[in-house]
């Protein structure tokens, strides 16, 4: 069964003239890691908000079409039940904090669902360990660094052990070390916990190596859906829409255009290093 299925979804925000999503069809099988890319205002955040049911439940506007989460219409699922199915991490970690301490922040969703104390204790421990925030539990969430805030936000969402995790620009507001840690957390969740993960990001370089599938959104439409190596092959199409694939993919894409490289596009530093060695004429030493 598909974890997420959108069919014919069109959405217009209240007071807006143009729809933000236009006739979107998208299916995401369970366990996939999906990277959503596209220019700002293209509809990326709107798309994931629709999956989480923030649209139409928390935001007003006009919706057409169906959004199904594990086969059920998302707007008919009650928030506490939905919270167990889909976790949503907002772009600005600070804006989603509602508690006075990190621990309370993590516990909040768990208490809402009404799990017993022992379960909550174990979940907090688990989420804090994966995100590396064990030492911050008694601190106020606004008095820690930006990267720590983002990890707390992730911890408080994954503590619910949702089957689907959505992250909206999780590295936009944080420093390089923080970005690395967030990527590492996502890798662990993908590899060890079989979560279905949907990430909206401008920082394509960091997430491309993890992605099974890339969704290109432009002007409210899902224009392309393909594995990263395939989608990055059309460099000029992406650059024309101000979307920049990883530099390593760009370099080898250009080499390929000149007939100097024939292999698959590399996505990471390591792959770039390996691809360079395969060049028959290059890397002489």
């Amino acid at each position: 069964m598909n974890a997420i299925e959108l069919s014919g979804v069109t959405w217009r925000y209240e007071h807006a003239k143009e729809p933000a999503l236009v006739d979107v069809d998208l299916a995401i099988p369970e366990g996939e890691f999906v990277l959503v890319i596209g220019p700002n205002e293209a509809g990326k955040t709107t798309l994931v908000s629709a999956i989480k049911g923030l649209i139409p439940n928390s935001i007003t506007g006009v919706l057409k079409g169906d959004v199904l989460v594990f086969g059920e219409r998302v707007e008919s699922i009650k928030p506490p039940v939905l919270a167990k199915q889909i976790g949503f991490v907002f772009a600005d970690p600070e804006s989603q904090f509602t508690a006075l301490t990190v621990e309370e922040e993590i516990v909040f969703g768990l208490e809402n669902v009404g799990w017993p104390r022992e379960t909550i204790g174990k979940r907090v421990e688990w989420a804090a360990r994966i995100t590396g925030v064990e030492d911050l539990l008694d601190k106020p969430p606004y008095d820690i660094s930006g990267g720590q805030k983002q990890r707390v936000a992730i911890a408080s969402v994954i503590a619910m052990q949702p089957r689907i995790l959505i992250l909206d620009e999780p590295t936009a507001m944080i420093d390089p070390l923080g970005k690395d840690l967030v990527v590492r957390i996502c890798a662990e969740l993908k590899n060890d916990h079989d979560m279905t993960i949907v990430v909206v990001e401008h920082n394509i370089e960091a997430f491309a190596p993890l992605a099974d599938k890339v969704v290109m959104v432009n002007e409210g439409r899902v224009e392309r859906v393909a594995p990263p190596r395939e989608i990055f092959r059309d460099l000029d199409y992406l650059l024309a829409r101000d979307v920049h694939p990883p530099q390593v993919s760009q370099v080898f894409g250009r080499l390929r255009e000149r007939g100097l490289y024939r292999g698959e596009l590399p996505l990471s530093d390591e792959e770039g290093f390996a691809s360079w060695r395969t060049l028959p004429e290059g890397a002489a030493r």
Partner: protein
Amino acid sequence: MARSEFAKKTLLGIVPADSPFYAFHPVTRLAFLFVLSVTPMFIDRPEINLAIIAMTFGLFWWGRVRMSDLKKYRLLLVTVALFMFIVAYLAPGDKAQLTPVRLVGLTLYWEPMRWAFVSYVRLMAMLFGAILYFSTNRERDVLVGLRTLRLPFQVSYVAGLSLRSAGMFMEDFATIREAEQARALDLDALSLREKVKLYTMYTVPLFAVALRRADEISAALYARGYTLSGRPGTGGKRTDYLRDKSVLRVRDWVVSFGLLGTFVVIAIVSRTTGVFSIQASPLIGFVEQLLGIG
């Protein structure tokens, strides 16, 4: 940033890294707050309220609160004093009923001045009680304290949210001030009227920030499965994990009931006898003699 060893910042102040207060359950510390800041309402005699202030300072010292952290309240003390005495001077009430006093060329009326002095000392006693609380309690303590008293979840939650907004408000305020300074605003050079006008200007960015945040928080609450009733959608009870983690010990019961008992005794004595009234105050009596009233 390297954190210092001796202090932690909270929303409303700075608390010591280690303090004997931390040995008490948050509820016991709430009892301290309640008794220290409510008792003065039953006491008019300034020397007793001064004694309470002295005792509070003893507790500051015992609780290892850095005295230098209290400096920032100086402005508040002075402003409140000025305000109260100016009101008493400008609007004394029916002058025919009052006792005029000539002092360094000014005609003052004794009763309103006495009222201002007595109320000021009382207010200070109450205020220092609150300052003590926020100088020795972190956000989490406030919350666990409220929840242990079995207040409905929404109450402590809203209290927490407002405390947080208050903190964010103050932070925003500080940034906005910096931004104004960056736009050539010299606060020291402004007249009072210009300052008042300035404060109305602050409301623009403060509201802008608050409005955008309110939207974000309501979406965040939905995303985390929160329903207004505070009840899980499954129909069961909301778990209270944090509250259940702290345990009340014997010493908490003893201290809390000791404090509350003292408060009840003072309140009863105050209502039934005149021990805490102005008339019983030797200090006021002495000043009246000095001024030749009475």
